[in-house]
């Protein structure tokens, strides 16, 4: 996305608000004005903002399901293979394939694979760790993790013009409007 920006202009224009409600109405107004490529940066998640920005599906649940199935099958296969092929033990004539006894291990490997995939998958889907991100160039952006709610219209938007975007954002009663250096 960053490669498409014009070499001289800003990466985006950012407005800051002091409550999620104001951010929400700003997003609605920006959508009405025809902006598409925008992103909100906030100290805590807000379902309505996620929906307003059109971020719908996360792939985390699907990845987790796949990992859970793989982990469960893998755990059960390991226990069965070890008990039947690799190290069969005849204990009082009990069947080698005593599958009930393998359920605890199957359950644990299911949860282990699913849990680690959910956590690591979330981090990778977010593109993290990302050593450089332009939003940190915005003055005052350190408050995005504290008590400010930021809306950034990105330069990749087809309608983007830094001056126009700045004057548009100023009409939404923000605390501040700043350019984000690329």
């Amino acid at each position, binding site marked *: 996305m960053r490669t498409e920006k014009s070499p001289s202009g800003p990466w985006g224009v950012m407005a800051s608000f002091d409550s999620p409600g104001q951010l929400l109405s700003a997003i609605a107004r920006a959508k009405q004005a025809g902006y598409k490529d925008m*992103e909100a940066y906030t100290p805590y998640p807000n379902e309505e*903002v996620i929906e307003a920005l059109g971020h719908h599906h996360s792939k985390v649940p699907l990845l987790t399901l796949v990992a859970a199935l793989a982990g469960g099958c893998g755990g059960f296969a390991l226990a069965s293979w070890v*008990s039947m092929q690799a*190290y069969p033990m005849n204990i009082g004539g009990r069947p080698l394939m005593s599958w009930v006894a393998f359920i605890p*291990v199957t359950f*644990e490997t299911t949860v282990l694979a699913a849990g680690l995939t959910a956590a690591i998958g*979330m981090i990778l889907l977010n593109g993290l760790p990302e*050593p450089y991100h332009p939003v940190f160039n915005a003055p005052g952006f350190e408050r995005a993790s504290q008590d400010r709610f930021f809306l950034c219209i990105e330069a990749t938007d087809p309608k983007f013009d830094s001056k126009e975007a700045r004057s548009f954002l100023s009409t939404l009663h923000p605390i501040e409007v700043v350019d984000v250096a690329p």
Partner: protein
Amino acid sequence: MSPYATVMDDSQLTGQPIVLSGKGPFGGDVEIPEPLVTGGKKWSDVDRDICLHTEQFPTKRWWICFAAALSMLGVLVFSLAYLLYAGMGICGVNGPVGWGSFIINFVFWIGIGHAGTLISAVLFLFRQQWRTGINRAAEAMTLFAVACAGIFPIIHLGRAWFAYWLVPYPNARGPLWVNFNSPLAWDIFAISTYGLVSLAFWYVGLLPDLATVRDRATHPWRKKLYNVLSFNWTGSHRAWRHYESAYMILAALATPLVFSVHTIVSFDFATSVIPGWHTTIFPPYFVIGAIFSGFAMVITLMSLMRGVFNLKNYITLNHMEAMAKILMLTGMLVGFAYSTEFFMAWYSGSEWEGFVFKNRAFGPYWWAYFIMFTCNAIVPQIFWWKSMRRNTVVLFVVSILVNIGMWFERYVIVVTSLHRDFLPSSWGMYALTRWDYAILIGSFGLFFTLFLLFVRVLPVIAISEVKGVMDPKVARSAPSDAGPAAAARPQEV
């Protein structure tokens, strides 16, 4: 009026909902909950109050606690080294009591961990928003308790340097594989899964808060360090969307996990044929006992954190009361399990089972049974009184007593079932030696050292989650104090 929109001081909390008469849609009363964060805190205050402890030089009180914890950790290191050198003979285990203090401590510490997962996962799924004040520290407690617990099965092996044999992997020993029919092999999977998933859950929750610590940092190296730890978290809603999804899934996975772990620990006992161990009540009985003991430890730690770190506005009396209620409920369930065991011993008509339980309560270890029953089933009954649930001194004392009682519960289960088995000629007694005591005390040293380091370097309360349960009308900063000066405002309490 939205919930949590009221401003209250800590002393004004009653533990009852606020009644707004005539505010309902048809002119009736509306009840709203009391705010979860008191003192009219703003979002910027939350950052300051919680990050402060990672930013200042530690207080004298912290150093005193840390010195004590570190010396206890020294005891652990020394006694473990001597144990490896001298062998198991320095401990009290011997025939007929072949499982001694190491197994007791293992079950005790694993149990402690369960409350952390319960608070972070189960209460999350049940939308109990008060958990936001305590979940971070409780999850940290889980991790450190699992770390303590992990030591004991390894040293109980006797030859701890062969511990890696328990892991099934292609090896040059034959190859030799583990027995998947054995609960001891299940334990390896359960404990390592529990430790790793708890760590993942904890770290996912920490990411946005590490970003907050980074953004408040003034020293460039500190900023870099926390930036790396937070994986350069920006707080974008693309990220929050994945984050929320992953957090929900981890909670949903950790919920059955927490019940499975102590179930599997109880299988170590229940799948044997020893009277007193061989019962189907063990899985639920162990899980409830674990949650009970864990909540006692959470209350102990939260009482200390409230006092030492001045977090009374975030961990309010309402939080303490909620935990006291859970403690009383689980305490009664544990008491019910004790009674059920006796009923089953009588009702089964099994001579051996009946003897074990008579011997448990009235035999030579009657005092251990007495401590267990009093501390776990009777003492928490004090929480029927609301004034007691909201009295921090009573809470602290009861939490300590429950911790002691739950250690003795495992002592009773392990020792009284083994010391008099089927053959009277092989009866015997068990006593802890000084090395058993040293390792027990040392494990507390490890636990508290890790916890004290945690409160120094990481945010002890889930900042982003607490902000989410505050009302923006109260919590947002006035537009006039836009700018970095706002962070340095003096505290208004």
